[in-house]
């Protein structure tokens, strides 16, 4: 046994973080907070990958989480760029007030 901590602990933690991220996206109205919640989701996944990598004695998961981070960075950059433009144009940060496109 490599570690005293059972693998399930990490998985449950990541599940909780993932859910919190989801709740953040659904529940909050502020664009910035929603983008942050998305980061939470991606981090939860990272925990999963690293956990499995560790417990499976396998490098792949770690590499994967590294790429996830990089992608997350690019995503956030774009997300914030769009958000800034949007707030500039729409004069609001509440995403649910931005609903021209519907039905």
């Amino acid at each position, binding site marked *: 046994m490599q570690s005293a901590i059972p693998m399930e602990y990490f998985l449950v933690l990541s599940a909780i973080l993932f859910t919190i991220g989801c709740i953040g996206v659904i*529940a909050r109205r502020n664009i910035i907070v929603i983008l942050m919640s998305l980061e*939470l989701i991606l981090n939860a996944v990272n925990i999963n990958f690293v956990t499995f990598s560790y417990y499976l004695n396998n490098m792949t998961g770690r590499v994967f989480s590294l790429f996830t981070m990089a992608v997350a960075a690019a995503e956030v950059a774009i997300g*914030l760029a769009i958000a800034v433009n949007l707030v500039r144009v729409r004069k609001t940060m509440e995403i649910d007030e931005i609903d021209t496109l519907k039905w």
Partner: protein
Amino acid sequence: MIETLFFFLFAALAISSAIMVITMRNPVHSVVSLIVCFFQIACLFLLLRAPFLAGAQIFVYVGAIMIFFVFAVFLLDIKSSMAKQKFSKWASYGIPVSLLFLVELIMLALKGGFGNAADSSASAGQFLDMAKSTEALGTVLFTKYLLPFEIISVVLLVGFVGAVVLTVKAPKED
């Protein structure tokens, strides 16, 4: 045992700060909470013998991503936003469903059925040693996973171009 305790500490902090991220009215507070959360996750990575990732976590997230957020928060007029209602009306539906999802996730996490380490025990050593772990990561990254690595560079380039075309003031074409 100690590791377990540490785990619970980090986990508790991570969860509570994550909750704070989504509950704070002021986005600046959220950003700070998120930084805390990422730190905890970095620590957890250490527990999982992934020092390079822990570092990367801090560099990338805390160092880069969070700076974006901070800039964004300061660029934007958060005052007016803070005066408004914090939660969307979907929260009342979303939270129960998300919790249901959480229940599913936890049940599955506890179900197990994951592959076990015995298969690759020969190389087990490299994971215990933090330094070796990093080295192994590097080797794999530049050999086996060279392709995704290359693609990531393009992704980041695209991200850069995107950020430029979306935010930079359009050059005057005369």
